[in-house]
């Protein structure tokens, strides 16, 4: 057995320190050590995107990163997106445009969309579909998700 490793990760603006096994995946650190269960595990094989968080501002599949790799970094999860009671425009967009059914893919979908709108504030429909191609939704057929992201992009452009 290898020795536990000390890590400190800034999660949603709060420094969180722990001793972890090197093989602990970031998603398990978030869900099991920090109880931030908004980040989901869908496939555990780097394909579905349900585990997407922002790692130093970039969308990342947290089932494909060890927590030790994120030592010293900033992580943002779905729990850190709203400003108090005020929903993030993407959360609002998913609400207004019915961008979810079962909701399992939604946190990862929204975190991917945050990265997409950061890189490209006014994406075309095709660019939105490419931007969320690392996230699989088994329910919606994607159209309402695309609408939700467009809704958010328009709102963010106005403000």
């Amino acid at each position, binding site marked *: 057995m290898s020795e536990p490793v000390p890590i400190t990760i800034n999660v949603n603006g709060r420094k969180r320190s722990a001793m972890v096994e*090197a*093989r602990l995946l970031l998603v398990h650190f978030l869900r099991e050590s920090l109880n931030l269960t908004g980040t989901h595990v869908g496939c555990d094989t780097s394909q579905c995107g349900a585990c997407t968080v922002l790692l130093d501002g970039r*969308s990342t599949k947290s089932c494909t990163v060890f927590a030790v790799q994120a030592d010293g970094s900033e992580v943002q999860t779905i729990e850190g997106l709203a400003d108090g009671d005020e929903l993030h425009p993407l959360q609002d967009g998913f609400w207004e445009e019915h961008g979810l059914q079962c909701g399992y893919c939604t946190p990862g979908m929204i975190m991917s969309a945050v990265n997409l709108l950061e890189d490209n504030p006014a994406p075309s429909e095709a660019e939105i579909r490419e931007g969320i191609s*690392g996230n699989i939704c088994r329910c919606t057929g994607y159209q309402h998700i695309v609408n939700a992201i467009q809704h958010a992009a328009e709102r963010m452009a106005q403000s």
Partner: protein
Amino acid sequence: MIPTAFEYRRAGSVAEALSLLQEGGPEAKLLAGGHSLIPMMKQRLAEPGLLIDIGGLDELRGIQEDGGEIAIGAAMTHAEIAASDVLRAQAPIVAETAANIGDAQVRNRGTIGGSLAHADPGADLPAVMVALDATIALLGPNGERKVQAEDFFQDILTVDLAEDEIVTGVCFQACRSAAYAKLEQRASKFALVGVAAALSLDGGTCSSARVAVTGASSHAQRLSGVEGALAGASLPGGAADAASGAGDALDFVNEDLHGSEEYRRAMTAVFARRAIEAAAGRS
């Protein structure tokens, strides 16, 4: 899926990574973006006892152009390569290929050094590096070594890289008239067949060409028959003729649930033609 336990060390410099590699011996593995290695570790297809993290090393970062030669550091991510103004202007094939790897999350983590060292038979960048006649820079205990891309890729997941060496970067001559075309696996975007073509053009006539395929065979390799047929060909009209024998000339062709050998051979010719036409249309 939980990998076997291992020791984790974050290297503070390339020199430290090299000495950790020596210390760890066959148990040690470098970790860059982790997007090939971690999935393999989760399936226990790889069980390294020591992971040496080189993902954040400044020495392995950067994209520079100097007198027409472009150098990319091994730890540059696919997303950074796709967004590079230097590459978009002077070697658009590289930026475009990186932009079509996997998905946004994969591109945010995966690195060019990891992609070349891992040499997945369906990886995109190896074919592009062979077509551009890139040089791959390696550093080991005995100093630096340079290997041409076409010699680096040797077999499935097998490259000319010793256990104690690190890929530090790649360099190649700027080239606008080059393009990559792939038939992608719809879910992962890995190439079932991908062809990169880099042309020297004199008006509408091709004076010489380098063409390489990935996905179709065990490793990225040149399509020398196509290259020969392109010399003196007028383009884009002559692309289909030059590409027609591309698939049949391959010694070994992969076969799996995504495509039979026959299909991959046929698609090699089709995507060679598309890559040549796109490259010719770009000059």
